[in-house]
């Protein structure tokens, strides 16, 4: 099968959906012909679809999402880009209070089919305002869907499903994934929300991981295999809805659970998944659940500091050994 990058997979999804449906349009800062997106995801799309449908906006995050909400409730399907996930903080009212609630609060009269694409993640030394992983903020808001694709294949299929779906989606990307290559078929496909993917089957321990951490978990699993330990790596792919069934099923099979995420440990992605396992599969667990996450600090700039706070393969291996 052909291989393309995560970045190209996202661009392909946008291009195909824009060709298929004239109500799909893009808006965001520097996404148009002059820059093509800070991470070049939208590169070339303004040339194909024009500046009306690939719209460069002022630096006004809250209004960008508000405008997307307004367009979405009146028949359009906007895909907004927030240049860095940290900056979604500026748009939090429109995301969490408006987009997420507009259907419920108005008694089901409206729908807001919009997608907010934004990159999270540390690892490139750009410090506390450009490196966070804030997926859990959005998981906490009823009314939002949250996607966390880890591969080009998942990125394309989930983004197409997000655009076609009728709920507001926060589509979390990871900056280190953009250049990562993976197999993506030529043909049309979508991936439904709420369906996890077992990225590696195993018997001895379940590792649930998201985004860039999936790749670190797979490397850790490879190393553990050399030591004769069989690790199952489960990638939820969407955090809301969350495929509890697959996660719990895997835990029931292995009896051991390690949850890995790049966000802060307290009240984070790992906390939610661990709590679900404790609630629904405690009788199957042969060891306490272990979490591998960022140690509740902002992301520092200097390389040795930053490397210290980002969960790595070693930490995952250590956690696996602790539950065995």
């Amino acid at each position, binding site marked *: 099968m052909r291989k393309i990058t995560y970045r190209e997979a996202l661009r392909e999804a946008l291009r195909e959906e824009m060709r298929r449906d004239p109500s799909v349009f893009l808006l965001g800062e520097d996404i148009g012909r002059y820059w093509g997106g800070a991470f070049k995801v939208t590169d070339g799309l303004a040339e194909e679809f024009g500046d009306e449908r690939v719209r460069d*906006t002022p630096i006004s995050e809250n209004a960008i999402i508000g405008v997307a909400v307004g367009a979405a409730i009146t028949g359009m399907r906007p895909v907004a880009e927030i240049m860095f996930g940290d900056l979604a903080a500026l748009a939090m009212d429109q995301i969490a209070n408006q987009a997420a609630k507009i259907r419920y609060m108005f008694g089901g009269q409206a729908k807001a089919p919009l997608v907010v694409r934004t990159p999270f993640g540390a690892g490139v030394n*750009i410090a506390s305002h450009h490196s966070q992983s804030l997926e859990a903020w959005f998981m906490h808001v009823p009314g939002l869907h949250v996607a966390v694709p880890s591969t080009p294949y998942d990125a394309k299929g989930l983004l197409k499903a997000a655009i076609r779906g009728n709920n507001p989606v926060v589509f979390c990307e990871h900056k280190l994934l953009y250049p990562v290559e993976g197999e993506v078929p030529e043909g049309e496909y979508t991936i439904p929300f709420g369906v996890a993917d077992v990225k590696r089957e195993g018997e001895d321990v379940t590792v649930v991981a998201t985004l860039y951490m999936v790749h670190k978990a797979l490397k850790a699993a490879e190393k553990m295999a050399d030591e004769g330990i069989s690790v199952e790596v489960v990638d939820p792919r969407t955090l809301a809805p969350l495929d509890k069934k697959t996660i719990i099923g895997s835990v029931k099979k292995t009896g051991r659970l390690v949850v890995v995420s790049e966000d802060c440990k307290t009240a984070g992605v790992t906390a939610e998944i661990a709590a679900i396992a404790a609630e629904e599969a405690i009788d199957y667990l042969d060891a306490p659940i272990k979490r591998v996450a960022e140690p509740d*600090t902002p992301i520092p700039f200097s390389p040795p500091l930053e*490397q210290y*706070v980002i969960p790595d393969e070693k930490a995952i291996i250590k956690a696996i050994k602790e539950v065995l």
Partner: protein
Amino acid sequence: MHTADLPKEKLVEMYRLMLKIRLFEEKVFELYAQNLVPGTIHLYTGQEAVAVGVCSTLRKDDYITSTHRGHGHCIAKGADIKRVMAEILGKKTGYCKGKGGSMHIADFSIGMLGATAVVGAGIPIAVGAGLSVRLRKTDQVVACFFGDGASNQGTFHESINMAAVWRLPVIFVCENNLYAMGTRQSVVMAIENISDRAAAYGIPGVTVDGNDVLAVYEATFAAVERARKGGGPTLIECKTYRHRGHSRVDPAKYRPKEEVAAWLARDPVKRLKEKLLQSNVVAENMLEQIEKMVSAEIEEALKYALESPYPAPEEALEDVYV
């Protein structure tokens, strides 16, 4: 004050500071090319007259807030370039112990309240500092630096309105370098002069040649004087231009060649130098002397930064709380 009345020493000092920023930034650029700078950089090259013109009107105990393009603001306010350089290289001896880096330098001891990389986020913080000045009953002022792009954030409008109605001692300094990343002002604003927005909030707004340090100085001097006396805020738009791309990776192909050439011809450092020489304020050999001294200072800063240790990894856990 009219700049014609400025003492010779003040003019020479402004030249020295502008040159210091210029040469410092060129050094950072060089280091970047050698892979010695982690992360990204946003150089101030070309905009030196703004930081220096503004900060030359301020006292040490006055405040400034800064942006992702902040090295020049730090240096103009009087920061120690050894510690600025060390921070940019991620060293323990840097202003922020390596936690902040190029986009986040602060020196609270000289009223430099920090650079935020969230575009527009420094504007209300400057207003808060202005409110604090009022509540503490001092006569300090606050200069708030931000870009043309930042002036489209809600924070710009909300903050100026607040400062206006409370008559706070804040000088809003918009560095209009015509672009926010690759986005030309005309793509995102229906006005030409950002200072026009001042009228909407009932405060004075002026546009000045941001590549003429004396023009910036004069406008800021008047604003500072008014602010200190309780006359409230001013919006000063400085039209300027960055000589390089937005950040390290940007070749800035979206800027027409003729436009770049026209602005390079109006280089603020060169212009001040010519002015000083033409008006016989200083002799050429004195300027050469200054350049030598500034270069030596920068080499010393670099040596200091290179020889400084990195922070220990566990220091990542410190300073989360008091």
